[in-house]
């Protein structure tokens, strides 16, 4: 299945963030909330079981100057293999002049899945972005499939964060220099002008990026422990 969806949010003359373009294509179904206000709320609903091996999904999100978008998932994503064993892929691209919060639910990498996920964000001078990624290596008692995630965020063309994470190689997943045998890895990227306190514990940290912004990272054995760290920033 090939699908592409597009969402454009702009500020209207009353100071409300309004959805100007909403183009869904199953399984990428965008459901806007009816309330009108300074922040537009849109849910991203997977309207077909996806992604399966062979699927190519693409979502483009543009948020204009002064506008704010809250884009949320409604359910965890299960990465599943297809019958052909082909790779599946998803690309989410943000072009932000205003402010975006992108909070999908966790992604579960089921056994034999083979998926590539890319999140790209281009921010202009004052744009803000908050995005979360929580990965679960396999369902309960299940071996993880393969997943490569890539996040690249730039501000006015300058790189802020560029991180690839590959899971599903048992030698690296188990290594104290890989994922240290933890089943759940979560990150929360916050790109704005706010200075946040650095902090950390045994398997979590909140740190400033070199060119501005904050990254929280947590490793754990369950989603609750990991998201608790991410919720705190």
């Amino acid at each position, binding site marked *: 299945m090939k699908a592409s969806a597009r969402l454009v949010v702009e500020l209207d003359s009353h100071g409300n963030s309004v959805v100007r373009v909403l183009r869904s294509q199953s399984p990428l179904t965008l459901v806007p909330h009816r309330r009108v206000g300074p922040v537009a709320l849109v849910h991203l609903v997977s309207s077909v079981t996806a992604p399966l091996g062979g699927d190519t999904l693409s979502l483009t999100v543009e948020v204009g100057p002064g506008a704010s978008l809250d884009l949320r998932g409604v359910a965890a994503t299960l990465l599943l293999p297809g019958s052909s064993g082909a790779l599946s892929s998803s690309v989410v691209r943000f072009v932000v002049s205003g402010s975006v919060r992108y909070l999908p639910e966790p992604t579960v990498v089921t056994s034999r899945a083979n998926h590539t996920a890319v999140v790209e964000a281009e921010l202009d001078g004052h744009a803000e972005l908050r995005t979360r990624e929580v990965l679960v290596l396999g369902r309960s008692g299940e071996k993880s499939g393969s997943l490569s995630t*890539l996040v*690249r965020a730039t501000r006015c063309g*300058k*790189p*802020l*964060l*560029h*991180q*690839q*994470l*590959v899971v599903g*190689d048992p*030698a*690296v997943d*188990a*290594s*104290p*220099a*890989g*994922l*240290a045998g*933890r089943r759940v*890895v979560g*990150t929360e990227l916050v790109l704005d002008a706010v200075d946040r306190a*650095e902090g*950390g*514990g*045994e*398997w*979590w*940290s909140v*740190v*400033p*990026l*070199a*060119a501005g912004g904050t*990254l929280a*990272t947590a*490793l754990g054995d369950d989603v609750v422990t990991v998201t608790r760290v991410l919720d705190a920033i």
Partner: protein
Amino acid sequence: MLTALILADSRFPGGGHVHSGGLEEAAARGLVHDEPTLESFLRGRLLTAGLLAAGFAAAAARGGDLGRLDAELDARTPSPAQREASRAQGRGMLRAARRAWPHAQLDLLPPNPHQPLVIGLLVGEPYEAALTCAYLAVSGPASAAVRLLGLDPFGVNAIVAALPVQDVASRACKELPALGSPALDLLAEAHVRREGVRLFGS
């Protein structure tokens, strides 16, 4: 080739011996305590941080824009402790290099450069630069393990010799990698916060 050998030599006075690449923190937590756990640590480190560093050494050797590469490597190093360790080792290497190779175009480097860029510029050939960097990504932590854990130096050396350092160097020449290692980043941050005696700077 000779430059690569000198840079990879543990006697090179670039200050690399004070960095353990996360091994000290992993050993303090008991995550690395014998040869099998050391092998797992070194393999994970080589395939993530080692590949990343080697890719930037290769790109610098190929004549890439060093200022741009420095910013791209910063974006791929979210942990401030890891950025500082890389720049500290870059500084140390540069200090020794200025005396050893006064004609090298070291002024092309940005101030306070990341170590892979220094290696790339000095070695000048992409694969050799990548190989040097990939090897240093595991040889330093391996010798730290001998010092911290009292492991058998022959056994540790055999582990290093069996690691796929050449494969990683070849992959590093093909594209600019961006592989992160969450656990290494968290070990590096925890190491900075650790109170009490630390033998290593990272």
